[in-house]
């Protein structure tokens, strides 16, 4: 075991897979010699060569499109889109091609592409460096969507993603690359070395895609969250002194429905939290699923705490970002209801 932050854990996952599987290649902007703008590929080109860690032109459609072709020709590409906010030029290739290639060819062709991309706010990135577009991709049939909340999960899930024969959109919440963040920007940053999930095996391991994890057991209310919000929700439950059961979904699609149902049937209450905007957001799917599966266990309406339905702001970031106090207020409200 060694202490790693999320960047190092992600780097380690790719390093191991480049060593284990000659068909693994990385492609993305600034990932090669420079090592990536967030340093996730630092040193990998030097170690594994320019033909395996490939600097790409600024063309997300070309990165995804060429990764599909590489996948069809037997490689296992890991494409980096520098910010999730820049993934849209690649969306035709993701939505119309990558997600549906296996289906449209009845399994004859597929492309085992992993697309890594940093997402989410809290870094003063404004509307072009802070978005959380996961709901666009969970709406697709044929891709899996993963978002880890800590270094240990990030490494195990990224290795599993690279080995998976299905396409994976792997979102990396960049606010927690260097340490868990409870939503309070005025507190000094906490490093991962102080967190149990900052203990990461140096060697190969995988975590199963499609499994949620209860990160805090509780009896009063179930909180469904992922990414940075896992830490915000834990802080909120502590702050409000509420016995909340917090579930880190980890894989957004396919969803671990049994884990959710088991918890909500126990607590009878549910709050859904994400950074992404609210209307037609991923939280709506979670709320609908809970309502369909657990209606007779519910003692109160399901509440959502999300980003507001505006573009991501720069100056008003902390009014937009779902903070500890907003989540705590929702937890208190859902306990007062009915």
């Amino acid at each position: 075991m060694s202490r790693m932050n999320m960047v190092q854990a992600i780097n380690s996952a790719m390093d191991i897979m480049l060593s284990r599987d000659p068909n693994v290649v990385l492609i993305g902007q600034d990932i090669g010699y420079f090592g990536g703008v967030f340093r996730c590929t630092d040193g990998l080109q030097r170690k594994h060569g320019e033909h395996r860690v490939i600097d790409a032109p600024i063309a997300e459609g070309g990165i995804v499109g060429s990764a599909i072709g590489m996948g069809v020709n037997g490689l296992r590409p890991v494409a980096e889109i520098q910010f999730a906010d820049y993934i849209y030029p690649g969306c035709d290739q993701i939505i119309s091609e990558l997600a549906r290639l296996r289906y449209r060819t009845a399994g004859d062709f597929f492309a085992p592409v992993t697309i890594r991309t940093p997402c989410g706010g809290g870094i003063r990135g404004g509307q072009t460096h802070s978005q959380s577009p996961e709901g666009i991709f969970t709406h697709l049939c044929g891709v899996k969507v993963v978002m880890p909340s800590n270094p240990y999960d990030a490494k195990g899930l990224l290795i599993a993603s690279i080995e998976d024969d299905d396409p994976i959109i792997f979102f990396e919440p960049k606010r927690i690359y260097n340490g868990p963040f409870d939503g309070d920007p005025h507190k000094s940053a906490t490093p991962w070395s102080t967190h149990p999930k900052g203990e990461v095996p140096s060697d190969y391991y995988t975590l199963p895609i499609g499994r949620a994890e209860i990160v805090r057991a509780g009896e009063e209310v179930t909180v469904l969250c992922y990414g940075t919000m896992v830490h915000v929700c834990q802080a909120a439950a502590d702050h409000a002194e509420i016995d909340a059961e917090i579930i880190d979904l980890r894989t957004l699609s396919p969803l671990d429905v049994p884990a959710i149902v088991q918890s909500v049937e126990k607590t009878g209450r549910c709050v859904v939290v994400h950074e992404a905007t609210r209307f037609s957001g991923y939280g709506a799917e979670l709320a609908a699923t809970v309502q369909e599966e657990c209606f007779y266990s519910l003692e109160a309406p399901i509440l959502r705490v999300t980003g507001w339905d505006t573009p991501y702001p720069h100056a008003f970031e902390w009014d937009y970002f779902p903070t500890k106090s907003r989540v705590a207020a929702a937890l208190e409200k859902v306990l007062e209801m009915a």
Partner: protein
Amino acid sequence: MTRKPRLHIPLPPARPGADPDFSYVERVAAGEVARPDPHTRIRELSNDLIWRMVGVLDDEGVATGPWDPQLDLEHLIFGLRHMIETRLYDDHMLRMQRQGKISFYMKSRGEEAVAVAAAMALKPSDMLFPSYRVQGLQIARGRNLVDLMCQCLSNSKDMCKGRQMPVMYHWKRGNIFSISGNLTTQYPQAVGWAMAAAIKGEDDVAAVWIGEGSSAEADFHHAMTFASVYRAPVILNIVNNQYAISTFQGTAGGEHLPFAARGPGYGIPGIRVDGNDFLAVYAVTAWAAERARSGTGATLIELLTYRMDAHSTSDDPSRYRPKNEPEAWPYGDPVERLKRHLIKFGQWSESRHSTLIEEVQKQVEAEWQQAVSYGTMTEGPFLDKNELFEDVYADMPNHLILQRQQMLEYDDLREGH
């Protein structure tokens, strides 16, 4: 007097009721353009490759000039036969669509050489990324027509298991990729495939086709950039058949320079070739394949041709172009031109040609009978509808298992229930 910009709207030369006017298509005599060594650096290539046009067969059917691939008789007859097979297959499938046996079809009449000659100039292990109008690739690579027909019928032997509309074939074993209705997506995919071949140190090349209309898509730019940057072993074809449904090639940007001219801006050689000249298409494809296979890099080929029939069975070209325009195309018909070439040298005759057509026609009809024995849209055997949920993922996730159960509970609307 002040001058102001005025928005330019490209207009086709002739609308219905007018006489066809192909004065915008420059006439270039066969054999005029020199053939450079395929390893020549792009800076040293002549602009004649772009501004003029590579041709081999002259008006008399004589092969002339440096691009003559000097194919033997067996290859020429193979090419002729497969162009005819493509055409008769198309004709048959159009009739079947008109009779309601299939939902949709797209013919390639006039463009058979574009596909058949290119397939013949490449190795069987080279990977082809087709558009929807190069069915000749499949046929020249020896695909059973029954397989293509079953796909169009969405029947029990459909290689797509009923998941794609007609003509969206693929052929894993024959190294032909899946066709997408989203245009030009295959361009960067072909480049990526070629990059992978180079990464692995293999000498297979990729070849990819789009129409001139869809060269306007962003994926064209992505593919050209990546092909150039990584010197990918890929052959990038633009089939300029003058029309994107009703929109003539000027609206895709073809008024100013040939589409082949888009290559050099990216650092990729462009070659314009007479797409109705079987020998020229073969020769240019072989040139580009040699360039790619030796590591020199990609080539952009513009194949000048004419879409003789409707875009698809949902289209009516008499609403936007003169009815007799196909006959006026200055570069003729690819099947007739290769036939004339063979006859000119005493290797072929009208009667042998008629016999071949009859033979292929019988073959097409027999294959159709076999195909429909595997089912049609209205008559069984049908595909198992459980297949609807297969292959979304490598392993079926729980929510799809549940949805499949739900579907099976509500099958009362299906015919026969």
